[in-house]
């Protein structure tokens, strides 16, 4: 067991290079640390997250503290640039994150210390996608997100609110986790009408291949929040 872990550590260390840095000394101390942005992102294994991860150190009144030391930590294969530093004048500290080489959930922990030296922490869950899930993400960006993502930008206007049955966000685990794997694939393949749901969901089987649809389902499962935890034991593929 120990050797396996050592081998794992060796592997992951080989794939990662920490920016050499000496953590500066804290100039101030906060009473709380909160997440500002950058949680629940997904990216391919070993890819840099699109958005930086931002935390804020607050005093007892809830306003930002400048000069507090924030240190990020996670599994050894995760790379931070920079891994530690002092908060700016708004009390915030931001770092760029590259996830490790294994797919799955990662927890990034930001730590600061209060006046007594007690550590204060906030965790950021992030998801690394394997090849199949990355493929699903790319297909989803092209075919699905215009309706399933309600966020609208000038370059990509969302159609979500125009539909009579608003589509579920792909990260809506509370709903989508209830749908069995076979049903999820059937809905994507044959459309909503075929399964007694809204006909606004079109059938994708003549357009996408079966493996593309599998990839979409894998992506939906990967980013589910709360996470998708299949019940029971599955048999290996025959």
């Amino acid at each position, binding site marked *: *067991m120990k050797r396996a872990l050592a081998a794992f550590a060796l592997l992951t260390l080989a794939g990662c290079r920490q920016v050499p840095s000496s953590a500066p000394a804290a100039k101030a101390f906060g009473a709380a640390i909160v997440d500002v942005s950058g949680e629940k992102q997904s990216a391919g294994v070993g890819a840099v997250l699109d958005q930086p991860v931002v935390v804020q150190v607050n005093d007892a009144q809830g306003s930002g503290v400048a000069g507090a030391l924030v240190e990020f930590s996670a599994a050894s294969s995760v790379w931070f640039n920079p891994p530690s530093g002092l908060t700016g004048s708004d009390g915030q500290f931001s770092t760029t994150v590259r996830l490790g080489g294994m797919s799955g959930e990662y927890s990034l922990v930001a730590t600061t210390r209060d006046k007594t030296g007690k550590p204060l922490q906030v965790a950021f869950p992030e998801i690394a996608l394997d090849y199949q899930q990355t493929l699903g993400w790319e297909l989803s960006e092209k075919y699905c997100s215009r309706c399933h993502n309600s966020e609208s930008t000038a370059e990509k206007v969302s159609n979500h609110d125009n539909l009579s049955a608003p589509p579920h966000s792909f990260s809506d685990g509370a709903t989508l986790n209830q749908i069995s794997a076979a049903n999820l694939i059937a809905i994507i393949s044959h459309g909503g009408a075929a399964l007694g749901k809204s006909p606004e969901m*079109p059938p994708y089987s003549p357009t996408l291949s079966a493996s593309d649809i599998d990839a979409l389902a894998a992506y939906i499962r990967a980013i589910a929040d709360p996470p998708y935890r299949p019940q029971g034991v599955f048999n290996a593929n025959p």
Partner: protein
Amino acid sequence: MSLRETIRSACRFLFGDSARAFGSLSVLLLVLLAIVPAKDHFREWLHYQREYQDLIRNRSDAVSLARRFLGGVQQIWLPELGVVDRCSTCHVGLGEASLAGVAMQPFRPHPPIPHSLTEFGCVMCHRGQGAATTVEEAHSSTKAWEQPILPARYVESSCGQCHERPLVGTPQLNAGREMLARYGCVHCHKVMSPEGRTMTATDDPPSLEHVAAKTTREWIFVWIKNPQAYAATATMPNFQLSDDDARDISAFLVSQSTPYLSDASRKTPPVPAQDDAAALQQGSSAYGESFCASCHAMQNAAGLMVGGNVGPELTRVGSKVKPEWLAEWLRNPKVYDPDTAMPHYRFEEKEIGLVMGFLGSKTDSDFLANVHLDAATPQQIAHGKTLVNERGCAACHEINGVSHLDNFAPELTAVGSLPLAKIVFAPGMPRTLPDYISAKIRNPRSFGNALKMPQFTFSDSQVDSLVTALLAQTSRAKTVPVALRISAALSSTYQPAGRAGQLMTDMRCFSCHTINGRGGDMAPDLTWEGSSVQRGWLVNFLKRPNTLRPALIRRMPKFNLTDEEANVLADYIMIVYQTPNFDRDQIDASKFSAADTAHGKDLYYGKFACNSCHIVDPIKDKGYIGPTLTQVGLRLNAAWIFHWLKSAQALRPGTMELNWNMSDDDARAITAFLMQQKAASKEGTSR
């Protein structure tokens, strides 16, 4: 007791008489005989295999897992690929999907990929020493094996060894390859595909042969010192020039510049004064209506960059260009740069003045504030020319008196297999190839101040993408069997003929549209456009293109064509760009019955819910992903709609429209309904 005496007494004890000697030698022999089995017992891979058996023992699927477990050294041998992989000796659970929850290596199953492990092995993608049976030898560089396992973040590079065509599912590799072409890497570094195709640049660094007509020496001075200070999106890297060097290079560039206009006496049109708010507003409208933002970005008041990246950013263009140059450029850009991607707009002089007024207001008073250059001396000009030669400016730009440079920098065709022994690492850096390439891109001068490679401003993820693309350039890629290779799409040099061809060149249709495999991807593929549209609509659209897809920022500009020009283009498109798969006139829309139309409407709103994405009734319908169809009966012909409904992807591969595989009856009914959509509109506004 001395040492000698001790040895003597020990010998006497062990070999004192024949019985003792026999006993001792027997014991020694037994020990020697035990060494080999003991060594075998402690082998690393055996240890992992025993651990795996412990792992699966208490699972409910233990029986099936145990049945598939093969003990001993496992090997995948693929002579054609040069693969001898024993990785599955320790990575025993690679094919066991049911172990998906196991986090401990080496027992995790391989994530699903399109290739079978037994057909491709492991080292094709992960590199490392496949034949090794110890953790250290398989994953790390050893004296006998240089190439360690590839960090997972670059694993897409291995796809690039066979796949030259952009692949869905490898975003990082695709982005890296695009960057090699877009950021000018391949101007200096030769990069060849395994098939011997040289990668070509997609950026278009301007010729500097007439640069003094376009801008001032002061602007050149500030620009070459730090291009990103002028435009955050500039692709030109920073050469970290000293003030003196920048002074001399700017002096040389201005001195070598020649006039480009045969008729230098042309006047600039009247430009409204900078305090004429109404005229500036008109200029801004003209800029918007011409859809300049489809290609050019500009920082808006909120600090956001708005617009495309085909042409240069224009946030501070008023501090850069000379008015007389800008007027000529807006009249016809090809006079200054025959190869520009910018279309010839056929603006009226008054419009040119308005646009000039608007662009002239895009200045930055700080930008050239503290720049004062004395008149250049001949020594400075000569020194500038030397610097231009040394720094390789002519690898990207045309410059009078300096010959174009090929292979200015080392070739990178096989950089993914560069032997570590040939690399000079900077002190303190990790001694691996990916780390070396990444450090070179991040900060070239960290390897020595005399190096010529300039400083780029890339984000962490951009650097990862570039490293991924470069690591795909391996020597193994050349030995991949031809049957496995997915070649890049052949680049097309298609050129339409005759006067229509001239017009299409003049308007730079190929900057945005693709026809017969040539062109950009900003606008629809026009290869079968003649089968799709009605001639009357096309002529109208060419003269007054406006919003077919209201949700898009990037749209077709108005080129101010004459009637004759629009007709020439329409004739050519209608006759030449026809699909051979069906006859445009095979369905006569006038023969549809009212019942067909009514049935089609039911299908449109019911079974197929077309209204999720398209608008037919602008008051009731809301979907706006696809084009509005309020006037589709005037725009498209019936046969196109019919075939589009059956199999859109066959007509325009990659379109967002699904292949509906509709029955002939359903497709016919919806076609009938759509051909009725002929809403009248104010000409030139919403068509």
